[in-house]
């Protein structure tokens, strides 16, 4: 027998087994919140109801004196593909889906110079239609064009390759210090050259094709003076941070700066990117309409 307590005139004496019985009864009637939630959350293929942000995962690996950015990365915090519909599996999935908190690091609209919005702002709703697998270019691909799908970064001395699953695409970015050519041909991914500033890889891009629109709200086209600066860093093993500055002295009153976007390392060990060709488009008319819309700016 264990005497637990004795106060003025009252004696509480309980046996050890009695205490245990009461504790078990209380836990059964009022189970801890997490156990209760787990019982009530339905189970889905892929355990998507349990998606949550990855931990930092320890320090980032380094190669040649710099963080090594190599890996398969997802545009979210959960280390795997998170389709929008997975948010309906459990309230917890939202935290895994987010790349940044707009309340903490808001991402605002571009500031247009007077008269430039009508010429360069893209008609709302128009986009590179999903069914065409059309490429998005720089920096749109990594700022939302690739939607839920992963990239693979392969870092080698002198060169970084960024492979994109959707739309299927690649970029090669020299890190050997070469300057931009004098007058590069415009391309969707642009002409890039990169250097390290401390632990941040700074990628400088010019000569992005006219047809590339920038992701933001609203989306917008650009002049041939556009200059894109992308910053890649890997603060810990499981996270890549990607931030973009777009300068365009013709169109923008000031440079547009993105929020820092988190990418998370794939939890699927040894995963390879899937091939993604749009071989089975079944809505050609709708796709055609959206592709046509994409070319229109507000002024047209």
């Amino acid at each position, binding site marked *: 027998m264990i005497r637990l307590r004795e106060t003025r005139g009252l004696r509480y004496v309980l046996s050890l087994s009695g205490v245990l019985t009461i504790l078990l009864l209380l836990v059964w009637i009022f189970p801890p919140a997490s156990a209760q939630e787990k019982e009530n959350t*339905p189970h889905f293929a892929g355990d*998507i109801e349990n998606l949550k942000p990855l931990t930092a995962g320890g320090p980032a690996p380094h190669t040649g004196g710099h963080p090594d950015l190599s890996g398969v990365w997802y545009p979210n915090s959960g280390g795997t593909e998170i389709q929008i519909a997975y948010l309906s599996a459990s309230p917890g999935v939202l935290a895994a889906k987010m790349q940044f908190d707009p309340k903490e690091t808001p991402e605002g609209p571009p500031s247009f110079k007077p008269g430039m919005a009508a010429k360069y702002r893209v008609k709302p709703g128009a986009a590179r239609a999903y069914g065409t697998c059309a490429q998005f270019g720089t920096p749109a691909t990594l700022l939302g064009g690739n939607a839920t799908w992963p990239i693979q970064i392969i870092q080698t001395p002198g060169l970084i390759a960024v492979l994109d699953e959707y739309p299927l695409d690649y970029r090669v970015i020299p890190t050997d210090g070469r300057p931009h050519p004098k007058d590069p041909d415009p391309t969707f991914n642009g002409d890039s050259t990169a250097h390290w500033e401390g632990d941040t890889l700074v990628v400088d891009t010019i000569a992005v094709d006219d047809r590339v629109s920038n992701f933001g709200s609203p989306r917008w086209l650009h002049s041939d003076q556009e200059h894109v600066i992308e910053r890649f860093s890997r603060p810990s093993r499981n996270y890549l941070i990607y931030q973009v500055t777009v300068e365009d002295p013709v169109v923008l009153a000031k440079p547009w700066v993105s929020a820092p976007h988190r990418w998370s390392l794939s939890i699927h060990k040894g995963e390879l990117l899937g091939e993604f060709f749009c071989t089975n488009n079944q809505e050609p008319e709708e796709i055609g309409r959206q592709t046509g819309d994409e070319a229109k700016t507000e002024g047209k």
Partner: protein
Amino acid sequence: MKHKILGVFAGGAVLFLAAASLPAHHGYATEFDAKNCLNLKGTLTGVDWENPHGYVYMDVKDASGKVHAWSLETISPNSMRRANTTREDFMNNSGKPAAARACPTKPGGTPDKGTVEILVMSDGVARILGQNIEGLTPEQTKDLLPQLKP
């Protein structure tokens, strides 16, 4: 299907999605009817395992006993595979009962065609294969699942 809870839940998600400005998804806004989604029960007959969308085929009997061959659009097979829904799962469950939450084409569109939002094959596993154009909250999804028994 709009409930008050939807506004509270979706606030964060909508804010995030607006900020991210995702590419327009062809077809969904114009072709499929998010207001008239329904539960289908029938037999799984096949799958197109291709990009940009897979297609699931189900034979569903109507009240008069007539069989309708439904064609249901899915997300990319690349995505399905990552969430443990494989081509083999479809092969193994082919010819067996299945249940689906589907959103049909809009009035005037192709009949017996839609998106599959949630599929339950005869193995009993609930698989999210669509875009949740209905905008179901986790609570609503939880309430729906017991109705999707193959």
